[in-house]
């Protein structure tokens, strides 16, 4: 008698299954790619929106409470509800997911960038002014570099939480690896569930390490101190 060896783990519905990985490789990679794209686009747009917002708050200081309050309130809306409320307007689409994801990054970016810029010591600014720097040059050459660690901390938190949040996009049909989780739930497919979960965590950790590495290159003066 010949046992169906090759199909074994799929038939037994094992948590770990090499055959699943080899036969469904393309689907997994497609979903992983979508997950990465959704994350990168959301974090990029979120940061791009947060920059003018942060500069606005710095220029008109009295709006700080309002801007931070509003972005925190939006952050407090559960993801399922935010995606759902957008469906009548942007449909079951990637746009719906991106708008939601971008919304959640705003408060993280604004708060971190603002804290970083505010923490620049006044005597450093005086010295820069004394050297004859104009406001734009001072901002780009002194304030932004000194705020860089805080800005990068914002990127880390925003990226890691976005990677996790993308999965909820499965609710409206665009969830990257969340799609796999959703499939795994409805077909009771263990290997699919575990693979997608592990990939999500690996993706978050990889992204985090990548940002730390970029930070290492962007802030060379911090390296010497820690060495």
């Amino acid at each position, binding site marked *: 008698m010949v046992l169906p060896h090759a199909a074994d783990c799929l038939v037994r519905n094992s948590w770990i299954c090499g055959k699943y990985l080899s036969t469904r490789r393309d689907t997994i990679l497609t979903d992983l790619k979508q997950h990465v794209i959704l994350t990168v686009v959301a974090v990029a747009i979120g940061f791009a929106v947060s920059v003018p917002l942060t500069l606005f708050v710095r220029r008109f200081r009295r709006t700080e409470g309002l801007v931070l309050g509003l972005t925190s*309130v939006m952050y*407090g*809306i*559960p*993801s*399922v*509800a*935010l995606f*759902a*409320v957008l*469906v*009548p*307007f942007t449909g079951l689409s990637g746009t719906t997911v991106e708008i939601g994801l971008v919304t959640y990054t705003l408060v993280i970016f604004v708060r971190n960038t603002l804290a970083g810029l505010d923490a620049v010591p006044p005597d450093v600014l005086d010295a820069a002014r004394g050297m004859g720097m104009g406001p734009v040059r001072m901002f780009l050459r002194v304030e932004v570099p000194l705020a860089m660690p805080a800005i990068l901390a914002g990127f880390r*938190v925003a990226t*890691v*939480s976005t*990677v*996790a*949040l*993308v*999965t*909820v996009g*499965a*609710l*409206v049909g665009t969830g990257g690896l*969340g799609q796999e*989780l*959703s499939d*795994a*739930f409805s077909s*009771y*497919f*263990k290997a699919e*569930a*575990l693979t*997608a*979960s592990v990939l*999500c*965590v690996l993706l*978050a*950790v990889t992204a*985090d390490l990548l940002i730390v590495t970029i930070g290492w290159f962007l802030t060379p003066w911090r390296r010497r101190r820690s060495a």
Partner: protein
Amino acid sequence: MSSWHRLIDYLTTASHWTGQAGILHRLEQHMALTGVSVAIAAAVALPLGLALGHVGRGGTLAINITNIGRAVPTFAVLTLLTLSPVGIGNRSTVIALVLFALPPLVTNSYIGLREVDPEVRDAARGMGMSGWQLFRRVELPLGMPLVMAGIRIATVQVWATATIAALVGAGGLGRLITDGLSSHDQGQLLAGAVIVAALALVVELLLALVQRQVDPLRRLRVAAATRGADVT
């Protein structure tokens, strides 16, 4: 009919509020899931965090676990638990919610006790207080605002996360949204979204008020502020 009309229509139809899939029953489920999960998480995490804070050890570990927790999608944990022997239903949901409520509770109770001014601690020791008395009469009251902040963060997070449980067929308010989606009922979808969002904000606000009430130094600060002075 516009989305707005569909929403109002849904909310003003009495039959949508009652019955097994009605708004009130979903709210009841949601409150039960949140309440049970926060209670279990607090019973585990608070003694642990407070003990670590009193001794002054293990804090970095707790904070690292919090950071790792952020990378694990709730949806993934819910799916894994549902496919595991725990199975579909409330048990999986509660376990997942408890797991996500633990980190803020441990971290905040640890930091709350650690942040107590070392001079105050020395003074208490000098007065002859035992370790327990120091904890009970000095560290705990002074650390209370942060401990409460942890409970607030955990509760708000659990309340929000409980909606994701609807993706794996659990009860609660998230079901209004998933049911609305699967039956193409835009009114129900929007009603669910609006109710979930509004109640999340209400819960956050209520707990912020409670948190202010338990700050033992607040009255002092308020009194000082009215005199134009500043404590600390």
